């Protein structure tokens, strides 16, 4: 019977190095998804708050679909669907082609669309919190539509949306655990491998859960720092 500390040590005996690699994958997946989700979410929110009914409809369909599907199902559909779709395309040129879709990219896209559909709602309510006078003020000093958006609306929007987006970041961090189901070696999968090999399931899954908790705590410190910085800016103006 090995001791707990041997199991959790760094190196060939222990599993800490493998789990650390999992942490690296998890964090980089979440960090890669964030900008993707923010950009798509902002564009969808722009569509949903526009005066044009057809644009609103298109944005609402997007949100309805990706907010209503379970994240795991979205992930599987993108992972297997992309595989089948690309394979069909490749068959047109080369009938023997076999395609392997990258699990990291599929995870990034799936988590990105889910994140963006929630983020669009956050951005939308932030848009609604900005009074119409801000746009009118922008026009009245001679700014174009795009300039008003960039110089007047966006700085206020970010400040209002920040708490909601911070919440979504914490959810995203937890949702990355799902990619272990399509074979990406994140924290949970590495813990699962360690648990299977050593038969200390409770220990390793407990450690995995605590690592997620630690990531959440670190994130909330970071979020607090950002909110303080943004708040200070507001006071200075």
């Amino acid at each position, binding site marked *: 019977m090995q001791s707990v500390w041997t199991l959790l040590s760094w190196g060939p005996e222990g599993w800490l190095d493998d789990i650390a690699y999992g942490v690296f994958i998890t964090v980089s997946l979440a960090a890669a998804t964030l900008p993707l989700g923010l950009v798509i979410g902002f564009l969808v929110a722009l*569509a949903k708050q*526009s*005066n*044009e*009914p*057809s*644009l*609103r*409809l*298109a944005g609402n*369909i*997007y949100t*309805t*679909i990706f*907010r*209503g*599907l*379970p*994240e*795991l*199902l979205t992930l*599987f*559909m993108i992972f*297997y*669907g992309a595989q*089948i779709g690309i394979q069909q395309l490749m068959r047109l040129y080369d009938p023997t082609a076999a395609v392997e879709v990258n699990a990291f990219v599929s995870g990034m896209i799936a988590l990105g669309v889910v994140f963006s559909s929630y983020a669009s709602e956050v951005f939308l309510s932030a848009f609604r919190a900005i009074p119409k006078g801000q*746009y*009118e003020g922008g*026009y*009245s*000093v*001679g*700014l*174009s*539509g795009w300039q008003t958006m960039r110089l007047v609306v966006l700085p206020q929007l970010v400040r209002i949306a920040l708490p909601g987006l911070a919440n979504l970041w914490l959810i995203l961090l*937890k*949702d*990355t*655990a*799902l990619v*272990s*189901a399509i074979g990406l070696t994140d924290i*949970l999968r590495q*813990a*699962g491998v360690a*648990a299977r090999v050593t*038969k*200390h*399931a*409770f*220990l390793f*899954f*407990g450690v*995995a*859960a*605590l690592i*997620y*908790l630690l990531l*959440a*705590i670190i994130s909330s410190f970071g979020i607090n720092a950002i909110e303080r910085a943004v708040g200070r800016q507001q006071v200075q103006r």
Partner: protein
Amino acid sequence: MSAAAADVATKVEKPPAIPHGWPRQRILGYALVCVWIAFLAGIAAYLVVAWNGELFAKYAPSYVTGLGVTLLLVAISIVLGAILSVPIAYARMSRNRFLSGLAYAYVYFFRGTPLLAQTFLVYYGVGSFRPQLDMIGLWGFFREAFNCAIFAFSLNTAAYQAEILRGAIESVPRGQWEGAASLGLHKLQTMWKIILPQALIVALRPYGNEIILMIKGSAIVAIITVYDLMGITKLTYSRTFDFQSYVWAAIIYLIIVETLRHAVEWIERRITIHLQR
């Protein structure tokens, strides 16, 4: 620079007029709607082309049972979680530092870690405690993946529901408590007759969201070999390699979630009639 700014200022002296005809936004909007229509029509066409009566007859009944398992799992977890959330919310609001700290730690743990990790912790982790569980006769319970899922989900949703309950109760102004006390109602009566009816209006939407999150989250039990809707879907796909198995599951999930969402909105409209002006 000032000359350029002044130039722009004279050009745009009033807010842009409401667009007529075919402005850029409208073209973009119609194009996007057309893309969606094409996409949805494509999926419908795919389902028609890929229609396989034999396959449908073979797997449709198991989809129905899978749906039943999903709904049963969510219903039991939500109810157990609701029961469990009351003492947690009470502890969280109590003045006792130790009690509220404990409740806070519970809530923080279950909200800060992925549901999947919690489920794994229960499903694979209980094996480490087999002798103890054997002793108190609970091993039979935890051997079933379904029971493990219910256990993990109930603990998880209890944490979320406790926060919803706490937020809703604290949203009721203090004056309500004081008014009730001045009328001679005791604490429990005040809670039951004055506070909860007002708090539940606030809590309705978060509760609805929690049920929706639970239905979506319950898909992960497919990974620990429970044959819920997602589990059946995975099984069907692994047997037939037919992508439509996933499309059908997506349609069923979307219908459930949208129905629930609209039901919650309808109930909210009904119970806030006296607040609308």
